[in-house]
């Protein structure tokens, strides 16, 4: 099952400059793993060494923040859009 993953500007350099890429998987984590096989540098930005999503990275499956679902284990039952948004913060 193919999904579209939308990337923020800052991460596009790791995906050949593309604003969105495709990935396969039946969970969000599987989609990220598939992405990581093709774009290892991108995967290192999306996942901490322990395999979790960094605090300042927000991931939405269609319109839902996966933090309020099952995180990377959130199942995907149909072709979907996954949006990666960096936290916007400052001081």
């Amino acid at each position, binding site marked *: 099952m193919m999904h579209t993953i939308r990337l923020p500007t800052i991460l596009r350099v790791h995906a050949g400059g593309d604003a969105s890429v495709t990935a396969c998987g039946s969970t969000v984590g599987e989609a990220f793993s598939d992405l990581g096989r093709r774009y290892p540098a991108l995967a290192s930005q999306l996942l901490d060494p322990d395999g979790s999503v960094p605090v300042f990275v927000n991931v939405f499956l269609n319109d839902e923040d996966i933090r309020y679902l099952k995180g990377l284990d959130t199942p995907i039952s149909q072709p979907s859009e996954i949006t990666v948004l960096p936290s*916007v913060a*400052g001081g």
Partner: protein
Amino acid sequence: MFDEQSSIRVPEPVHRTMINHARDCYPEEACGLLAGYPDGRLTKAYALTNIAHSPVNYVIDPSEHFGAMRDAESRGWELVGVFHSHTHSPAYPSSTDVALAVEPDWLYVLVGMERIDALSVRGFSIRDCRITEKTLSFDAHS
């Protein structure tokens, strides 16, 4: 997108939203996002929640960020910038602002509240840790 513009026009509703949100959130920092056309013309300011609830830091609520992005895209716009207030320091990016700037093409607008009766609004680009001020022009009655 802002590189080609000698002056960035800030429509009166955008200006008013930023100022009012800064005042409403005081003494905490206010924050929000700016939408516009792909060529950089500003169309709307989204006043959003600072989930840090701090006078010295801000973090935009991620769900509201996503909602603003969806709303902007539904209108043919995109997110082109961010604004936040400095409650006790000038309208100039702090070292934290520079360190956490994640969108090199965005306009970063600062609302300085050192003088509550005369707020200062200035715009910058932050790219590769380099700050460049952008000239903002405001509608005459704003």
